[in-house]
């Protein structure tokens, strides 16, 4: 029954994508947005139901192979090549599944300003939802890759049709970058399959690889190659310096709901893939505690430190609000990588919690930037031209200050918990000792820069005298600020009682890596 619900959450949006498109096309254009909102509401409620049923309580009771709500059957089977249809959730994917639903619901409301080709927009929007949910619940590499790649198409069209001035360039860059990365990842996945006795099923593959390493038929240097291939694949979507250049373009040119999904969820796909395939699937081989794995982790740590500090400085000199938030996203994802590189319980907690926290906060900020853009006279997000927002749009300004602080890591809000855990993990880690201590030190210093650019942005945009640009601005509409208000509440909730999500994450991390 619950397996059926998970299948429903996965496929219902795809069916409704077609229904929404055709209803909007042939019956009434205005209905399509309500169909989309209704669909996402239903799947959100069902996800919440699953969460409340099984993920609240002392401990989650996983099935025999560590997953809940599993559906599994052979899809293609021939000798040494097995592809399965296998979906299920665990403590890693369930919070992200819930996050997906929430961000989609919020962004659906915030899309109401779009009036150009509405049916197509909401059709693609629901299609995107299926792709994202599929990425998070797929337990077969073939299935995972299908959903992973499918996400590109609707996102490409959302940027290319409803985007800003440079939308063609940005969408093409996004597509080519991520497609190339996916293909390199695919080679890694096949290499993994090749060393795992001919199955694409993640759960079987995990045990097979671990057994093969234990009995010596697969060497750790092979695992090292696999790790780096999938790492390159995921790190581009993630993204970290130096693979980040597609992100500012895509985020800035996408429509606000598109940016919010890009920042809130597409980056999390990279993080999820890295944890699930890069870490979870090969952790049992002992790779990460081996010398090879340790040097990989040091390299990851360096990458994370650079990605924390360098984009933060770039964000400091941005005048486009969205571009600033985009660079801050790269910087924040550095914490995820740092936590993973630390590879201890605090670090893994931080990595997963940061994905949730950033997934709540950054969509809110992007949507706020969208509201500001729509209400200024020349539709600008230029922070030099907009000022004094508190006088004209007090609620928007308040939310921006609140979420900005959340992103900058103010204690009591979600971002702080993740950063704190991440730095603790990094300092405690076995690889960041001795001369490598500079990595966590640089990471911590980046917080100052982060606080710097957010405070500076607030001073410029929120306070000072109201500029000409916003003289006609008024209170934003309910469907604009309402959803962001919800996100702000969640930010506060996760900051004060992080346990509601962190407990599940913590339990899963201990079970998967340190049992």
């Amino acid at each position: 029954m619950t397996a059926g619900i998970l299948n429903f959450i996965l496929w219902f949006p795809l069916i409704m994508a077609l229904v929404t498109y055709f209803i909007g096309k042939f019956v009434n254009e205005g209905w399509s947005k309500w169909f989309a909102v209704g669909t996402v509401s239903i799947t959100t409620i069902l996800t919440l139901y699953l969460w409340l049923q099984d993920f609240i309580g002392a401990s989650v009771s996983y099935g025999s192979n560590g997953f809940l709500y599993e559906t599994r059957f052979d899809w293609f089977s021939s000798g040494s090549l097995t592809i399965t249809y296998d979906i299920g959730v665990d403590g890693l994917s369930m919070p992200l599944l819930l996050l997906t639903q929430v961000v989609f619901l919020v962004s659906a409301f915030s899309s109401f300003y779009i009036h150009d080709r509405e049916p197509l927009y909401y059709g693609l929007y629901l299609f995107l939802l299926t792709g994202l949910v599929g990425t998070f619940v797929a337990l077969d590499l073939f299935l995972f890759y299908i959903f992973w790649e499918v996400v590109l198409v609707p996102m490409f069209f959302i940027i290319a049709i409803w985007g800003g001035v440079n939308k063609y360039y940005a969408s093409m860059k996004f597509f080519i970058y991520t497609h190339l990365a996916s293909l390199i990842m695919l080679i890694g996945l096949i290499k993994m399959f090749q060393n795992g006795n001919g199955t694409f099923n993640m759960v079987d593959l995990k045990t097979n690889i671990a057994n093969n390493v234990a009995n010596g038929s697969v060497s750790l240097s092979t695992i090292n190659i696999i790790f780096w291939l999938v790492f390159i694949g995921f790190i581009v979507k993630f993204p970290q310096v130096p693979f980040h250049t597609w992100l500012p373009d895509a985020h800035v040119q996408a429509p606000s709901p598109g940016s919010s999904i890009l920042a809130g969820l597409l980056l999390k796909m990279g993080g999820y893939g890295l944890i699930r395939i890069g870490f979870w699937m090969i952790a049992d081989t002992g790779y990460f505690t081996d010398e090879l794995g340790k040097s990989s982790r040091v390299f990851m740590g360096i990458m994370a430190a650079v990605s924390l500090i360098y984009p933060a400085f770039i964000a400091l000199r941005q005048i486009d609000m969205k571009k600033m938030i985009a660079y801050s996203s790269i910087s924040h994802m550095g914490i995820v990588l740092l936590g993973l590189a630390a590879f201890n319980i605090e670090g893994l907690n931080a990595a997963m919690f940061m994905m949730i926290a950033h997934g709540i906060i950054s969509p809110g900020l992007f949507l706020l930037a969208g509201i500001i853009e729509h209400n200024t006279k020349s539709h600008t997000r230029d922070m030099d031209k907009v000022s004094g927002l508190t006088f004209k749009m007090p609620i928007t300004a308040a939310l921006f200050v609140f979420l900005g602080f959340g992103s900058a890591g103010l204690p009591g809000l979600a971002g702080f918990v993740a950063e704190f855990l991440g730095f603790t993990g990094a300092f405690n880690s076995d690889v960041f000792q001795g001369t490598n201590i500079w990595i966590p030190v640089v990471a911590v210093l980046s917080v100052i820069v982060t606080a710097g650019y957010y405070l500076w942005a607030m001073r410029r945009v929120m306070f000072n005298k109201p500029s000409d640009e916003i003289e006609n601005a008024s209170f934003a509409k309910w469907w604009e600020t309402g959803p962001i208000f919800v996100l702000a509440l969640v930010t506060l909730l996760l900051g004060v009682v992080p346990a509601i999500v962190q407990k599940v994450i913590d339990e899963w991390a201990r079970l998967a890596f340190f049992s």
Partner: protein
Amino acid sequence: MAVDPVAFTAFSPVLALFAGVILVLIADLVTKDAASNRKFVVSITSATLLLAILLVAKTNDLIPSETVLPMFKFGIFYQIFSIIGLSASILVIFSAAYDFTVQKDLGVWASLLMISNAGGIVIAASNHLLPLYVGFELMAIPIYGMVAYRKRSREATEASVKLFLLGAISSGIIVYGISLVYGATGQLTFAALALNNSQPLKNVGIFLILFGTSFKLSLVPFHWWVSDVYVGAPVSMVNYLAVASKKMAFAFAFQMFMISFVNDTDVWGPVMGLIVILSILVGNGMAAIQNRVMRLIAYSSIAHAGYIAISLVAYAQATGLPNESELKALALYAAILHIVANILMKGTLIAGALIVVNSFENDHMENFRGIYKKDKVVGTTMVLALFSLIGIPPLGGFVSKYFLFIAVVNTNTTLAWATAFVFAIGSAISVYYYVKLARVILDEPSNDIPLVPATPLKALMVLLTVLTVFFSVIVFFITPQDVFSTLF
């Protein structure tokens, strides 16, 4: 020597095609005007091709043993490639009806098409280099005439001359290679060729055959005829070249290299690897800078020929590995998948291009602007075909590319890895030009010239697109073992 009646059963598809040839030639004589001529010829040709498909599928069980026809082997390989070629030709004859509209002489063209198809069947059925070579020429020679069919068109004539000269040279090189192989081994049956050990003379022969075949497969560095021929020839002819005849040429290559020279993989494997890498890079790189759609299709088909030939690299690299036969089965399986997927997507794309070119009289990319707004069916099917060519799941092109990746990466050699990475880079480059074309198609139209009406062709495009979309469901009924069990 008495002719065994079994021979007639075995060759019934070829005989059916020749009966069709006679019928369409009669149709040319008895019809009164061009419109009714087209109607007759298209229906006779497609019925003949369908009958041939049916015969290929059904007569297989009636052929008793190989002793009756020692030069032929009627197995799944024969069935798969014959059906591929014949069904692709159905698409071609439907599109040809829009290209040759002026005179009532489509019948001659259709008869050449069917003769060429008979050659394809002979290739697929061969178990000996003699029928293989005869089939190859039987397939190739009608094509020269088909390209030059518009006698007054300077472009078509130029394209035909280029195709003819290069085709003749390549077949000369192939036949010289065959003669050397014959001298080295004294045998020409596939089984005997596979058994013999490698000798210098045989190696030279293999290289010559490899180069000659690369001409036909339009692989770099033997590719320079492709772009000119694709631009000059009538679009339906391009459809035949890219969709049907090249696939039969691949059947020729597979018969040659996968079956005859199976024990000389260390000779041709590395060279093939180099050719594949060059084809993917040059094909994709050149396609990215084209402004004429037919030229873009030409270069992209060079790249796709490279993708299909990856299976040959994987096949060669699998030699000597512990699970050799499985890997080889997978390589051939992946190639067949990509060939089928390629027919579906490239067939749709070229059929769409045909409609546009016939509406505008040329193939500049500007003419494709706003096709989606003008005609939803053509626009949608073309865009889906383009995304399938990129390899976006769950479309057909993705599934076949996935299997090609598995086939080549699984062999785990340096060359295989290099090929896989080049494959990835090439696919990423291809995103640029396919999406550029897709964007132009989805854009606002820049003029209001309507598209020519082409309902049957559009119906066919829809059918192909549906097959592309549900490709993964359909192909998973055939496994690599099925394909391989008949080869050895």
